[in-house]
């Protein structure tokens, strides 16, 4: 059974801090790893990673995959209150038609 574990479960920081969120996985027939941001209810897509060691970057957010360690990190620099959300990691594995999600990291950014 595919499994995704995220850490920490929750994190409280102040504006301007840099945060690193972790995701580790066990999956048969790995295809890709995805990061989502969930503020209200609809998760919104951030990154999709398929190749190890290649950083994906979008503004203050970046992510990298380590296939050897079966893990990924999501970095957010110069955090803002608008970054407060749940960050979900998901893997596309044995079945290409579904995602296995972790429980998420609840990030709170204080002014």
């Amino acid at each position, binding site marked *: 059974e595919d499994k995704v574990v995220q850490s920490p479960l929750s994190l409280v920081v102040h504006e301007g801090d840099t945060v690193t969120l972790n995701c580790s996985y066990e999956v048969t027939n790995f295809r890709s790893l995805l990061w989502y941001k969930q503020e209200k209810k609809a998760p919104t897509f951030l990154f999709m990673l398929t190749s190890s060691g290649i950083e994906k970057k979008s503004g203050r957010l970046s992510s990298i995959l380590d296939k050897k360690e079966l893990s990924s990190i999501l970095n957010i620099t110069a955090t803002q209150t608008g970054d407060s959300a749940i960050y979900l990691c*998901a893997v596309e594995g044995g079945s290409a038609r*579904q995602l296995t999600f972790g*429980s998420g990291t609840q990030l709170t950014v204080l002014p």
Partner: protein
Amino acid sequence: GAGVSQSPRYKVAKRGQDVALRCDPISGHVSLFWYQQALGQGPEFLTYFQNEAQLDKSGLPSDRFFAERPEGSVSTLKIQRTQQEDSAVYLCASSLGGRVYGYTFGSGTRLTVV
């Protein structure tokens, strides 16, 4: 439409009642997925449609759960004889192709069974 639309946004059901949750995917999206998200957890896969064909229903937790997409667009998730453990947010996602890349999620339906 511009996004994936789900209705109702909130549903309170008495235990034992049947409920129907609706998903309107993005026009032209072939693939449609249903996920269940319990409080404090990540979404869990329920079922997948490609057009009107239900290709995977391995995640449906019991035979009380039934999903359909008869004309290959709107989908309905039906839960019969609801129980308290069915309380969750039910998310629908659609994508143009069959792969997960390009998923667009709807805002979900929060079901509370009392």
